[in-house]
């Protein structure tokens, strides 16, 4: 299992567009990706659930990647967060 923490810099937070692209990105890998903030945790493949968390700019989220290709997936997904969120 791999994980990293990231503080959102996008002014609107995790909104529809980056969330949608994130889902596409995750689909490339076999690993399961979860995003959590505080007590709340969602499977990042679930677009509306992810948006429903209302993650805002300045919020710190924890991203967990678990599966056969977790090393490659974790690196790519962390890159994605830095570039898009």
């Amino acid at each position, binding site marked *: 299992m791999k994980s990293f923490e990231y503080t959102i810099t996008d*002014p609107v937070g995790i909104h529809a*567009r980056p*969330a*949608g692209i994130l*889902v596409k990105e995750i689909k490339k890998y076999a690993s399961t990706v979860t995003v959590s903030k505080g007590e709340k945790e969602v499977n990042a493949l*679930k677009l*509306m659930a992810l948006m*429903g968390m209302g993650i805002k700019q300045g919020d710190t989220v924890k991203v967990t990647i678990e599966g056969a290709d977790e090393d490659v997936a974790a690196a790519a997904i962390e890159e994605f967060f830095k570039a898009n969120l």
Partner: protein
Amino acid sequence: MILIQGKGVSNGVAIGPLYYYQRAKATITRYEVADAEAEWNRFKDAQAKAIEQLGELAEKAREEAGDEAALLFETHQMMAEDMEYEEAIQTAIQDTLLNAEAAVTDTAAQFAEMFAAMEDPYFQARAADVKDVSSRIIAALTGVVQGGINSPVPVILAADDLAPSETVQLDKSKILGFVTEGGSGSSHTAILARTMGIPAIIGVGDQLKPEYEGKEVIIDGGTGNVTIDADEDAKAHLLKKMEEQQKMREMLEALKGQPNETLDGQKIKVYCNIGGPDDVPAVLSNDAGGVGLFRSEFLYLNCDDFPSEDVQFEAYKKVLADMGGREVVIRTLDIGADKQIGYFNLPKEENPALGNRALRICLNRPEIFHTQLRALFRASAFGRLGIMFPMVTSVWEVKEAKKMCDRVRDELTKEGIPFSEDVEIGIMIETPAAVLMSDRLAKEVDFFSCGTNDLTQYTLACDRQNADLGRFYNPHHPAVLRALKMVCDNAHKNGVWVGICGELGADLELTETFLSIGIDELSVSPRSVLPLRQKIRETDVSQVKEKLLADLLSDENTI
């Protein structure tokens, strides 16, 4: 003649027959299905069809209104194929043997409710998207197609509210403008109308009656007026306005996206002055680079007691977030003199313009200042903030104000509340003392912003509210212009940028002078942005600079 008042959300005047949008409402019946697997496949087919339609709509929107409009449908596509959404529908069909139409309707309601309950208006607006996507899938299930415009001539389109997919499917050559009963300024209809440059008026409620269908109607997106069967005078007036706006729009539209750069390559920032979050759409639609003056007074003027830290925080945050990373300079409380507020209980003064006002009140009553600074720094996490202190005369005042900022930063750090480390601190230059001390003041701050209304009043010792002093109150006075040059020179020596946020900033007669003395930023009302840009782009500073600077120093230039 019938006059209806709504809220204008997209500018312009349009005239034409009123036409009600025909919406084919699919009636949903609920029933138990015998074969859940077959019903699930029926849903999957409808879903695939909806996704395909959305792809086509995205392309159509891209051609008609650009990438941003296309994004809407791409988002809808993602929602239509969302795992969570699909799972909820699957559960309804397979576990409760519900028919697909009802399963989609229930799931849509559930997700729409989730979004509607969220705090942020961006996410709240997504409730309409979920419903829209779901109606599309239901339409594919029932085979009922959505309505269009069945009129040989272009019309003013009326509806209760239009979903984004409905607006984009409409034949644009048939629409002159929109009137809707409901809706909001940030709804997709309003955004799309603005992108397409069509006037739109929302929120007319039940004032718009079915019997008006086919009558000639004139809508004015600037005033929010809907005029039905206008009399001749009203009609002539509105038609003239329509023609003028058309010409102006064509000229200014061409300037959007262009840099504020002179013919010889000198650049200057053009920002906007605003009074509150409601002014931000105008800032963005006029393509300004930022906000150079956000007057925070409105927060204090619109209530009966001191606004709380949270109330202020929300307002500042909204502006910063809506400006999407562009710089926003917020001026701390500037009351006193001509702006009085009852609950401050300020004693009556003999000379209010020279009295207890602006930063002086803040330093005398630090608890008021402290609340505002906390709200500002908290908001700084949501964008690019500059904080500006008004009515400075001495270096110690700035030092004391900055000490308050340090205290607030320390508090927030201890409380674990995020704030930006890159907040710029600046001051207004409005007094002769600040001008004369600008070399020293420049060492304390990141920027200066010249408030030319007060600077003129104080430099010329001339009350700007006294009508008898008209010819003595001259903002073009060389004393004022020399003061600006001195401030500019001292600022630049210390790596500090200088703006002008008074009315003078938009005075096109002085644009060449401001460029010549090296002003870095002009902050003006949103409607002045594009005319100012035009003036800047026509100017060749190298041709005029020498003469204008010599004039400033010439003893013949006494006005």
